[in-house]
């Protein structure tokens, strides 16, 4: 691409910059708006005066949020869930993707195993049978209901096994000649080499666990076991918005503390805002490498 400048080129570049800037602001603005709202006084927020900058700056909403034991407890449940769920999924993913990345000659039943997993993304028993399964295992109101049913991330396993396959065969062969078994080869050669792919899938698993709310609603009978997103779902959305007629909904929305809702949303989004930009470089690399096959 030669880089000579013409008048048309300059105009296009200018418009392009402006357009993309507008688009990126469109993605950012709602979050900035919520942030501004959370630092504004209740009166200014209710009157709709807040746009992108706090009006009558106050941290009252945050005092309120952090003073709520239910909110903190839900936050803690989510933290536990992310820690347990992510580590479990990662371990399972690493050891499951390795045998599946072997070819037919090294593992006779490979095709059968692979289809066993792939079939679960093609077809599912549906909501009610899944619920009843978890229930009959006695997992209702326990952490296991949140981490075990989703512990096998089939898509991530596929991503990782494609990554494993693109590693040079010679590495594995030389390890075998040096006397390393499968476990050792996996641990000392495959895992260190697949760190970018692991970072990618790890990020997605973490974000997935942090963000999921529906299983919490389904499997938890007592609100004190709710993870944060489920808690917010019931507090922010359901109470104010659902099961209420449209005309009352508006009134209730205004009455319910808008700033406190904004603060709760922002605190729940904060861990993600922190984590994802740092891993961006990794995940683009990981996705591209995992999806490109030779």
């Amino acid at each position: 691409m030669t880089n000579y400048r013409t008048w048309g080129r300059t105009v296009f570049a200018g418009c392009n910059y402006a357009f993309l800037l507008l688009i990126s602001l469109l993605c950012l603005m709602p979050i900035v708006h919520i942030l501004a709202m959370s630092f504004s006084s209740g009166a200014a927020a209710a009157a709709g005066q807040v746009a992108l900058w706090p009006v009558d700056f106050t941290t009252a909403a945050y005092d309120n949020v952090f003073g709520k034991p239910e909110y903190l407890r839900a936050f803690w449940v989510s933290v536990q869930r992310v820690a347990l769920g992510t580590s479990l999924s990662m371990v399972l993913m690493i050891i499951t993707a390795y045998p599946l990345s072997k070819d037919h000659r090294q593992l006779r039943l490979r095709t059968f195993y692979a289809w066993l997993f792939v079939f679960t993304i093609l077809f599912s028993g549906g909501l009610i049978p899944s619920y009843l399964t978890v229930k009959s295992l006695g997992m209702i109101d326990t952490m296991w209901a949140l981490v075990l049913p989703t512990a096998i991330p089939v898509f991530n396993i596929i991503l990782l096994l494609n990554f494993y396959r693109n590693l040079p065969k010679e590495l594995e062969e030389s390890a075998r000649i040096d006397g390393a078994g499968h476990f050792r080869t996996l641990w000392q050669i495959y895992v260190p080499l697949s760190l970018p792919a692991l970072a990618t899938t790890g990020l997605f698993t973490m974000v997935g666990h942090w963000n999921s709310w529906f299983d919490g609603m389904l499997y938890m009978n007592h609100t004190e076991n709710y993870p944060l997103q489920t808690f917010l779902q019931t507090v922010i959305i359901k109470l104010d918005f659902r099961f209420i007629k449209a005309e009352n909904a508006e009134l209730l929305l205004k009455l319910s503390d808008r700033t406190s809702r904004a603060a709760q949303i922002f605190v729940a989004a904060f861990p993600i805002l922190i984590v994802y930009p740092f891993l961006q470089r990794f995940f683009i690399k990981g996705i591209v490498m995992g999806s490109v096959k030779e």
Partner: protein
Amino acid sequence: MNGITRLWKREWPLHMMLLPAIVLVVIFSYVPMAGIVMAFQKYVPNKGLFGSPFIGWRNFRLLMDYPDIGRIFFNTIYIAVMKIVAGLFVPITIAILLNELRREWVKRTFQTLVYLPHFMSWVLLSGILVDVLSPTSGVVNQLLGYFGAKPIFFLGSNDWFPYAMVISDVWKEFGFGTIVYLAALTGINPSLYEAAEIDGAGRLKQTFHVTLPGMMPIIVLMLTLNIGNVLNAGFEQIFNLYSPPVYESADIIDTFVYRMGVQQAQFGFATAVGLLKSIVSFLFISFSYFLAYRLANYRIF
């Protein structure tokens, strides 16, 4: 027999590695599949799967007679198809425009910003959307007010709701969708552009004759893979944003199954509806993978 022992001796670590995952998949994916027999039962929780009486196709007949069922299927497909089309068109356009940027850091910053909504849950985004789209005090309606427009209750009006879903979904996902297309763009051979330039093609012509054809394989692939989503209109999004006044335009299969099964405890009926969806989805997904394999030589593993 000897052959099998020899195989086992060689392969046992691989089987052991697969064991935990297989146990989990059997329990949490295959056992529920067996639970599908509920669709043919008048399921009574106390009696369980083995004690509940079988009633043949009655749940399905009930479903066919359900007055809103046509609407629900229509809504599902309508919203899902619009999302698929817009979700293809927008990221491609943005990726091409983004590719025109010269400065690497601008590109990177832009990407970081537009990925943001993808990483937030529909619970949080719904909280934000309800606030921003509110007809009385929302920012969007305030802005529209400056242009003299009357406030619009985006989430409370049947005329607007489906489009609000499509637009907010595209808003959430387009940034992330550009990743794949950007990767495809960097794979286009630069000498093609040089050749086009020598032949007198301007940037626009280059876009249509070099860039787009170069992206075609990945576009075809994404489109075919998305065929499997025609019955996935987005449960998490709609469930968090809909309300009884907009059921007419917002109720989709998944939300209906939830209300019937979990809220009204009609387990057999809800399972029948879910089963219907699972089967149709299964056909669509299998078809789309088959197409992707034939058209783009795509293999899942």
